[in-house]
């Protein structure tokens, strides 16, 4: 094995790219869960975003339109879940699972003729002088715009949830939908918007996966990224800033194991491929065992069905 082939700077740069799809999806789900809805369909919305974004980018030649279309399609499929759970009062766990299975199937169907095609390239920004600095230049100034967008989005969501009236209303709905309803807030409408936002974020994350991270379309390419995003929301105890730490941690494990595989570590690559999933389980256990923090931050109405009886 040749560990010297792994450069720390390259590792950090590729870590950020590997984390961004998960971070975007986790941020969206965080907002959804803050509104009191548990959408387990992240994986399905992500893969729809991946395939739709890919098709749009290949067809138009513009990765930007690809991202936009990926987000729109992610939001569109999330509406199936939204109508089922908000208007037809279906079980959120089952509906979310259904969305994941439906999304994986639909994506495979749509992407059938797009395998093996390269998408239009989406390059890193280059700021003269700054991007050329040793080490710092590549880590701070050498990414593609979506990575900066994901960081800005984290800040924006934090600001919205904690510093604006809209964020307060959203959190109120998530804590007690009955109280929020009694105050005259439109619980269902607010939750519909939150779910659509979550779908758009997951779709964007998926599009990043197929347009930048891989960059190709392959069936089932999300490979559990949506589920890991759900775990990161728990890890982050519903705080956007901590979602970055969580996502980068998982990105780090993923990139490191890929590098170790490439460096020819003398164990079966299958065992290394397990590590991101095992890390997720370990983190879930650590976070869950700290009950005080969990009960403090978890939205009190999470996963409960709202029906206005009056």
């Amino acid at each position: 094995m040749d560990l010297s082939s792994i450069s720390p700077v390259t590792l950090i740069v590729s870590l950020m790219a590997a984390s961004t799809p998960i971070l975007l999806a986790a941020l969206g789900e965080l907002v959804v869960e803050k509104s009191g809805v548990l959408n387990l369909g992240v994986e399905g919305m992500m893969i729809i975003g991946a395939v739709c974004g890919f098709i749009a980018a290949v067809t138009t030649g513009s990765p930007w339109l690809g991202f936009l279309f990926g987000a729109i399609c992610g939001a569109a499929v999330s509406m199936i879940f939204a109508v089922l759970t908000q208007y037809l009062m279906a079980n959120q766990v089952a509906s979310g699972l259904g969305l994941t299975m439906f999304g994986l199937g639909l994506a495979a169907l749509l992407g059938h003729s797009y395998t093996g095609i390269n998408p239009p390239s989406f390059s890193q920004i280059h700021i003269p002088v700054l991007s050329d600095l040793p080490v710092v230049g590549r880590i701070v100034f050498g990414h593609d715009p979506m990575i900066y967008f994901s960081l800005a989005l984290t800040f924006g969501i934090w600001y919205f949830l904690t510093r604006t009236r809209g964020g307060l209303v959203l959190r109120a709905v998530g804590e007690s939908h009955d109280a929020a309803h009694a105050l005259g807030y439109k619980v269902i409408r607010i939750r519909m918007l939150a779910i659509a936002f979550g779908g758009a974020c997951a779709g964007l994350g998926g599009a990043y996966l197929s347009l930048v991270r891989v960059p190709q379309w392959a069936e089932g390419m999300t490979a559990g990224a949506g589920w890991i995003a759900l775990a990161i929301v728990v890890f982050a105890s519903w705080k956007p800033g901590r979602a970055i730490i969580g996502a980068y941690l998982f990105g780090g494990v993923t990139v490191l194991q890929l590098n170790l595989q490439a460096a020819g570590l003398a164990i079966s690559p299958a065992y290394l491929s397990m590590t991101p999933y095992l890390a997720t389980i370990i983190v879930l256990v650590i976070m869950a065992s700290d009950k005080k923090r969990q009960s403090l931050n978890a939205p009190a109405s999470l996963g409960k069905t709202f029906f206005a009886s009056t």
Partner: protein
Amino acid sequence: MLRLEARPEPSRAMVMLTPIIAVVATMIAGGILFAFLGNNPFTAIRIIFWDPLFNDMVASYTRPQLLVKAAPLILMAIGLSFGFRANVWNIGAEGQFIMGAVIGGGTALALYPLESPLVFPLIIIMGGLGGFLWAMIPAILKIRFNANEILVSLMLVYVAAQFLAAMVTGPMKSPVGMGFPVSRNFNEYQSAFNAELLSNTGLHFGVLVMMAVVVLGYIFLTRHIFGFQIRVSGQSARASKFAGVNPHTTVALCLGISGALAGLAGLFEVTGPAGKLSTNFPLGYGFTAIIVAFLGRLHPVGILLAGLLMALTYIGGELAQFQMSIPAAAIQVFQGMLLFFLLGVDILVNFRLRWDTKSKEAH
């Protein structure tokens, strides 16, 4: 205006009727989907739902397949339905299915070429044990650390798939497989092969076990204290505590039973219809079983019917793929839609639709 009115009691008629409504709605929506794909929707629906059973050209092959495909789905769905009733969400049946196949199949490979009537019972036990232990991981983490069993059991699906890959490229790789990542073929090992019991019926040993589990499941659910306990736990966690139900035991039992049944399903699949361990072995039955559990209303008899129907869509889907070149993924979409419609029309069980508000004053 159309509005929802809560029923005083859940409608028993609707409990029976809603799955049928969902299936019909799925056929219509599926037909539209097939039309979009450029196929004749009526032909497609006929090929999927009618031909596998009644078309003489293909039925001799497809009819036995019905039991072969339905057995693992029903076996797993019955296990899952217990948990779903009790709000214990085992989403990782696919992983337990794989581990049952790897542990049980691996035991058989280790014993090869020993011929003995004890081999098959032993590997059945090992298969069930493999699934059971794999499901115990989320159970213990849930009980001990309160970790979310949905996410843990799901993560373990990916771990199990990688473990399978490690096994078939390493210790379980066939010495006569010409370097391909596959295990030895079980139909070359008489003592471990899960053969058809009656030729051309698809009836293998797993089907018998499945039928026994349907009966046992029914008795457990309706006549045994365990069935009562899981139903209470699902309806109200607090009430169940007053009824003396230990929530930890419920979690362990629900995950343990569903894991063991998924493991058995995996073992019967790998030693019979699949024939060998390979990275292509997992087919997503563990996920489809979730749809089967809901479609069957979490009831053993319903699950039996739902499993047969779902098996039909698999077989019919393959036919449609073959005859009309409808992509395999279309069937996945079809199954997903079925779950959506089912969850959607479910509202009719607890609510009725009423036109305008004047009817209130009428009586």
